[in-house]
Each structure stands twice: as structure tokens, then as C-alpha cells.
């Protein structure tokens, strides 16, 4: 679903992974591509926007938000990688989007609608201003 909307980042040819080393190489390749690998230059990373697209998010209108987000980024010439993700667990605040600007801390916004999308793009992403509606995310995962 929605694959027609996404910036698809499938590595174009899926070759079978035949050894554990192949798997490690693939991971390195993916990291490099996402600019997170050892040699990846952080300044060249682009903005990432994730939209919570689990049942809870979609039920609250996340599909519409994602579509609008992609249109508005294009319209306002913001070079961002918009992708879908699952449920962050803060279902009460859906639809939710996470904005990662290289060099800044990720921000999660809740109760997002089209108006909020515009505000986030224009004020937060473009002008770097504070935008209301941030959801404080606080959990440890296995890597921190």
C-alpha cells in the first residue's frame, strides 16, 4: 500500500544473500545509502519525515496526512524523505509524524492534520521555529 507515494528505497536488484558476510555487506550498503555509515557525511543527509501508519494512525487520518505531506514538501521545494512507519505506542495522539532534520534532535508531533503539516513544514522545517504540538517521547530501546 501507498508504495506509489513513498520514496522507495529498495536497493533495486534483490540478490539472494548466501552467506552471513553477504548480510553484513548488505547492512553496510544500506547504512551508507542512508548516510549513517562510518563514511557517511552527515551534512549530506536529507530531512526524514516518518508518518505513523498503523491501524490506529490510519483510523485517525494518517493516510491523508501522508499524502498532503508529500504534496506540500514538493510544493514548497523541501527535499525530504517521507516514509511510513508503524505505531509508536502513543495512540491517543495519532496521527503522529516524526521529523528528523540532520543535526537536530528528532521531533514528534501529535494530533497532526493538514493545517499542522503546513505549519510544521513552513515554520519548523523551513524557518527553524518552534512549533506547538510536540509529544514528549520517552523510552529506552535496546540500543541506548
Amino acid at each position, binding site marked *: 500500500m501507498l508504495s506509489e507515494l513513498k520514496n522507495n528505497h529498495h536497493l533495486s536488484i534483490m540478490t539472494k544473500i548466501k552467506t552471513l558476510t553477504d548480510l553484513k555487506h548488505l547492512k553496510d550498503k544500506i547504512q551508507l545509502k542512508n548516510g549513517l555509515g562510518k563514511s557517511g557525511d552527515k551534512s549530506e543527509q536529507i530531512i526524514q519525515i516518518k508518518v505513523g501508519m498503523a491501524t490506529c494512525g490510519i483510523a485517525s487520518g494518517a493516510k491523508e496526512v501522508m499524502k498532503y505531506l508529500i504534496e506540500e514538501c514538493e510544493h514548497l521545494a523541501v527535499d525530504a524523505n517521507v516514509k511510513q512507519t508503524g*505505531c*509508536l*505506542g502513543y495512540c491517543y495522539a495519532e496521527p503522529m509524524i516524526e521529523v528528523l532534520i540532520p543535526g537536530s534532535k528528532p521531533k514528534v508531533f501529535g494530533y497532526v492534520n493538514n493545517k499542522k503539516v503546513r505549519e510544521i513544514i513552513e515554520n519548523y522545517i523551513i524557518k527553524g521555529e518552534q512549533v506547538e504540538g510536540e509529544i514528549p517521547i520517552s523510552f529506552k530501546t535496546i540500543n541506548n
Partner: protein
Amino acid sequence: MTDPKKQFRIALRNCGLIDPEQIEDYIEQDGYFALGKCIIELSPEMVIDEIKNSGLRGRGGGGFPTGLKWEITKNVENNQKYVVCNADEGDPGAFMDRSILEGDPHSVLEAMAICGYCIGADTGLIYIRAEYPLAIERLKIAIKQAEEYGLIGDEILGSDFNFKIELRYGAGAFVCGEETALIHSMEGLRGEPTFKPPFPSVSGYMGKPTNVNNVETFASVPVIINKGANWFNKIGTEKSKGTKVFALAGKVNNVGLAEVPMGTTLREVIFEIGGGIIDGKEFKSVQTGGPSGGCLTKDFLDVPIDYDNLIAVGSMMGSGGMIVMDEDDCMVAIAKFYLEFTLEESCGKCNPCRIGNKRLHEILDKITSGKGTEEDIEKLKILSDVIKDTSLCGLGQTSPNPVLSTIANFGHEYLAHVKDGKCPAGQCKSLLRYDIIEDLCTGCTLCFRHCPVGAITGERRSPHFIDQSLCIKCGVCFEKCKFNAITLT
């Protein structure tokens, strides 16, 4: 806002962070490295030891040690075995498993393959309810992508281990989450439980040894392999290791998912992660364990959550539903609600469950409509014990728990219903009483004109009167009166 960091995400580690429809996102988070490590570097025995040492217990409700289950299934000789993932998730209010499957399907596929490697199975089956279309769609995409990369299929990572995964659909009956019923349903038979033993590990799907685990159990496995049993077993309590995902619902501000280390208290989950009770109302009770669980009072808020502690206080872990109730909830009505669910979902195979629960429900209904007696409360207890002792499967064996726990913890509410004819929470309509206070009534006739059943009489400019035998307790008069002349007791 404080930053309590009470949550620790293992099963949910990737949910909301990666794109579940892109296997590369999962691989970037070390996805399939645990499987690779197992089949290339470890023997099945070594993997099973690791899972055993981790202390992982089943997250589907029973809490059976996962490593031990794998070992038992491994040790049954047979050239055909199966790995089954139980994604039936039938508890009202529970959606942990759905979120994992929608947000990180590969974590489950990877773990099923690891289990297959350990027990000697070449086929995995995911039993999922048809009401989860998005989870099904994402699982299908995930299986296809993993097959394309050769991470599932024949000769995985150049080894001689083959493993394929298929989906099986359930119609959403709660009892089909019980493992024997689930297996019968997959075989195309009626989804009814059968007596154990034989356990599925010995004779399961198509009579073959079958290892059944829950979605969340599986989702924790790759982390244990990657991080090590000793990393995992440092989290949690003495007998319950790791974390548990709860679906917080009811009268709590932050409805959603919370994954916390075992040993976290109910208070921390409800008041810190859950943000407390809606509209600042008073907490009354928390229900864990779904229709099999119990309702706990505020006296239990500081109990550290783990399998054994919850059972000790008369509830249970269950699959992770956590429903919070406030001062406006009537505990007798809550018990009745769960019984309604049970009645609806009982497969009807055995009498104590089919008929006994119906009787329990009738008595509860009698109490909530104001016709109950103290004797009825005793009857509830006796009947509950019989149902628990004589039912065939877990559904019947646990179905009286909501009744027993509300009687034990909220006995005064039952007594108020049967002795004083009052519902303290004001929920049981039949027990409400609207009266007009003569001295305050101006005889404006407003209530008389709005009463839908003509229960109010009175002359203009003289006090009105409610005929209790006609009143249907709709509350319209109470709302309409501009002189506060109507009381609700």
C-alpha cells in the same frame, strides 16, 4: 513534562521507527543477524540454552518458559514439525500483537525461523484473525521480501536449513486463541479446545509436534540472540525476565502501548506513562488479564508487575490488556460486561462454561437491576468455583475471575446493590431514583411536558410528583428542571 523513561522497548524496538514494508530498514537494525548467527555459528542446543538462560516466558498469557517449550518440541522425534505463531489476539482492548505485526513484521518471521532451526521444523504458520487486514498485508509483503533475499526459503544463508512461512486466517473467535482450538481451526475443524495432554509440542498441527508461541514472545527472541541471555535476564524480576507490552485503555489519559520492564508497578504504568485518569477523576480499579483476569483496587497500585505477583493478588498478566476504571464505573456492571464477552465467546463444548456462565450472568443481571439478595453473592462465589474446577479449557477455567475479584475487592459495591438498593457509581439505571422536592418545585410543568413516559403528574403552580412505577430513569426531568427541584439518589 518530566522524562520518566519508564518504558524499555524490546519487543517494540522497531515499531514506529522503521518502515515495516522495507526489509532493508529491518536489516539496518541488525535484522536477520540473529538468525544468521544461529544457523551459521550455533547448534540448536546452544540456541535453546540461550533462550532458556534468558528466562523468557510466553507472552500469550500463560507464561510458560519459552526455551523449555522449544526443547520439549525438539526432543519429540518426527520428520515433520511445525512452528506456529499465535496472532489471534482476542482480548477486548488488546492490540499489542497487531502493533508488532504492523510495525515490525520481520522480527516475528526471523524468530519463527530461529525456532524452526532449533526444533527441526521446516514450516512456520501464522494464525491471524481476518480482522487484521493491515497486519496481514504487511506480513505478506515481509514474507515476500525475506524470500526474495533468501532469508526465508531453502538453504538459508548457504546452510542446509530450509524454512517457509505461511499465513492461516482465523474468524476472530476468542477461544481460537487457545492453542488446541487454534490448531483445530487451522486443520479446518471446529475451533474447539481439546484436552491436554497431548500438548501441541507432542501432537499438534496434523498430529505433528508443533511449537506454538505468541507474537510478542517471538518478537523478543532476536534481541536475546543478539544481546545475549545475560543481557536479557538482568531486566525484570526474579522469575519474570525482560519486558512486557501493555495496551493501556479505559479512563486513562494516554491510551496506547507501553512496554515496561517486568517489576514496574501498576502505578508507574497508569500514572506516569498513562498520564493518570481522564478529567482528574479518581482512580477506582485496573483490570489486567482480559476476561480471564481480575480487577484490582488502588491498594494494589504498588505491586511490581510480573506473572507471579499478579496471580498472587487475584489477577493475571494475560496477554497485556490493561483497562483503567474510575469512580464512575460500577464494578458489578464491569463483571457483567466480561461475563457477556465470555458467554458470547464460549464454544459451548462443556456444560460448566456454557451453562454456568449463563447463570452467573443472570445473577449479575439480577443484582444490577436491583433485585439481588445477599444470598445471590454467595451463589456467585460457589458457582464460580465450580466453573473454574470443571471447565475443559482456559476460557472456562478463568471466566469467573472478573466476578470473584470484584466480589473480593469491591464487595461493598455488591452489598450496596443488594442491601441498600443503590449503585454507588450511579451506573445501574434500575437503581437510580428521581424525586421531586416539594418545597423547591414551582410547578412550572417543564418536567411534566418532557417526561417521555408520562410518569410526572401535578397541577400548574403546585408541586409535581414522579410515579416511580412508571419512571424509566431517563434523567430528562433532572436536566430540564431550572429550580434544582429534582434529586437523583
